[in-house]
C-alpha cells in the first residue's frame, strides 16, 4: 500500500473514532494538533487502527510515536 493511501485510510479511522470530520493528517501531525487526541483516546485510536489494518502493535510501539509519520512507518512495516 502506498504511503499516501495509508495516511488517507488512517485519516478515516481518526475521523470516525474521534467523531470529527475536520481532521486532516500529514506526516508531521502531532497529537496536540488534533482535538481530543489525548493519551486515553490514543488507545482507542490504536485499537481502531489495528482493527482496520488487521495488524497488532506492540506495547512499546504504542507509546513510541512522536508524530503521524512514525505511526505510518510502524504500520507500513507490518503490511
Amino acid at each position, binding site marked *: 500500500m502506498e504511503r499516501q493511501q495509508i495516511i488517507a485510510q488512517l485519516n478515516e479511522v481518526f475521523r*470516525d*473514532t474521534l*467523531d470529527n470530520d475536520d481532521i486532516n493528517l500529514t506526516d508531521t501531525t502531532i497529537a496536540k494538533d488534533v482535538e481530543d487526541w489525548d493519551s486515553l483516546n490514543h488507545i482507542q485510536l490504536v485499537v481502531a487502527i489495528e482493527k482496520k489494518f488487521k495488524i497488532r502493535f506492540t506495547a512499546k510501539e504504542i507509546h513510541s510515536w512522536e508524530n503521524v509519520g512514525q505511526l505510518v512507518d510502524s504500520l507500513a512495516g507490518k503490511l
Partner: protein
Amino acid sequence: MKDFAALKRNLKKDASALKAIKVALLGDTATQFLAKAIQGAGYEFGYNLQLWEADFNQVERQVFDPSSELHEYGAEIIVIFQSAHKLLGKYNKFKGNAANFAAEELNGVKALYDTLASVNPKAKVIYYNYTEIDDNVFGNFANKTALSFLFQLRKLNVLLMEFAAEVPNFHICDISSVQNAVGKSVMFQPSVYINSEMVLSIEVLPEVAYKTLHIIAALQGRFNKCVILDLDNTTWGGIIGDDGLENIQIGALGIGKAFSEFQYWVKKLKNRGIIVAVCSKNTESIAMEPFEKHPDMVLKMDDIAVFVANWENKVDNIRKIQGILNIGFDSMVFLDDNPFERNMVREGIPQLTVPELPEDPAEYLEYLYTLNLFETVSFTEDDAARTKQYQVEAQRATLFEKFANEDDFLQNLDMVSVVEPFTKFNTPRVAQLSQRSNQFNLRTVRYTEADLEALAASPEYFTFSFTLEDKFGNNGLICVIILKQQSADTLFIDTWLMSCRVLKRGMENFTLNTLANFAQEKGYKYLKGEYIATVKNGMVAEHYSKLGFEPNDGFWLLDLAEYQNKKSFIHKK
C-alpha cells in the same frame, strides 16, 4: 449490541428526558472507558446515567473515608470493579498462607460493602466478579492444590456468590462468564493494558456495560416476566398438523434433542417464575395433543399459563394473552422460528422483545443464552407458583363472562384477604413487589428488603401487606401499603401498590376500608395520598379521586370524619 465508538457517541446526545439514575464507579484499574461505555449503554436502555467516577485505584479511600466524594455524591448504584489482574498482584505479594487468600479477600469485600451500607443503606452495590487468569505455575495441578492462584480465584468467585445470596443489596455482575463467552484473548489486550492500565479490551467494553445495565434495569423494575412460544419448529421439530403426533421431532427422533433441550430451558424458566404462554397457528385440539400425549415432551399443559392456538393473526393473539396476564408488552418475549411472523409481531407490538432466532434449531439455545433475556434481582417461592395463578386467572375470565353484573361475579368468588404488617416471612415478597410493580403503583418508590426491615421497625411507619384468595385459588401477597405519620392528625400514604393480576376485584375499596379504619382507631383525622406519574402508572392517575379523596395542594386528602366504608366483597381472614 453497539460497539464502543457508538456508545461513546451516545454521550453527546440529549438524555435529559430519560430517567436519571445516580451511579458511582470505582475500580482498581483505569476505568475511564468503562465509565463511558456504561453511560452510553445507559442511553440505549433509556436511562440518563449520572455517572460519578472515582480517581484511579481509589476504591478503599473513597469507601472508608466518611467525607469522601463518593459518600457526598449519594449514588443509588455503586459499581465496584476490582480486577483479576490486581488480584494476582495481591496474591503475588501475599504474606500469609496462600490457601487463605480468597477468604481474606472476601473479608475485604465485606468490609467495603458493610461500610457502604452503613453510610448509604439504600445504595445497591454491583460487584464485578473475577475473570479467570491461569498463571500455569502448577499446570492442571492448580485444581488439586489450594495454594494455586487459580484455586483461590475460583474460590473467591464462589465465596462472592455465597455472600451475594445472603445480602439483598449486593449484586454480582458476572464478567467471568463474559470472558468465558468471548475468550480471554478478546477480553484482555496486553498491549493496551501495559499502556493504559485498562484490563478490558475496547471490543469487550460494550458486553460488560450491557451486562451491568441488565442489573441496573432489573433494579428499576424492568425485566421480562413472560415468554410466548410458537409451537411448530420452535417447541418441537416439524408441523404437528401435517406430520402427526408420532413424527414430530422431539427426544430421540431426528434433531429432536435440540427441541428437548430447549424445552428443558423453558421449563426451568417456568420453575423460576417466568410465565410461559403458547401462541400458535393451529387447531387447538391438535396443538394440545403433544403436551397431553407425547412421552418425550418436557413441557406439559400444566406448565402453560395461557394456551392460544387458532388461525387468527399472532398480533391479535398476543394482545389477547397480554389481556389475560395483565402485564406490560415490554415484559414479554416472543419466540418464533418464522421470520415473517416475527416481523409482523414486531411491527404490530413494538414493545415486545422478539429475538431473531437462528435458522438452525440446533443453535436456538446457545443464541438465547447470549441474550440474557431473564435478568432478575430477586427470587422467592411465590415465583414458582405464578403459572398456576395465571391459569386460574384464565378460568376466572371465563366465569366472569357468565354473570350479568360485576357484583354478582365478585360475590360468587368468595374472596378473603389476610392483612398483616411486614414480617420476616413476607418481607422478601413485599420487596419483590416493590421492585416489580410498575402500573398499579402510586409513587413508584422502590424498597429493598433491608429498607423494608428498617421501615417496619420505625415507630413513624405503619406497614400493611394484603393477600387475596378466592374459590379458584390463592393469589398470595398482592398489595402493599406503607403509611407514614406526617403530623399528629395526618397519615401519609408513602406506598400504595398492587399486583395487576387482582385488578377489578374491589381490592382498592377493601384496602382503603382497612386503612381508614386503622387510622380512625389510632385517632388520625386525615389520610393523605400522592400520585407521582411515570411512563407506566397512568392507570392509577385518578386513583385517589375515584376513592373520594379531595385534591389538596398537589396531594390528595381524605377526611376520615366523613368516611363511610366502601362496598367490598372481600372478607378479612
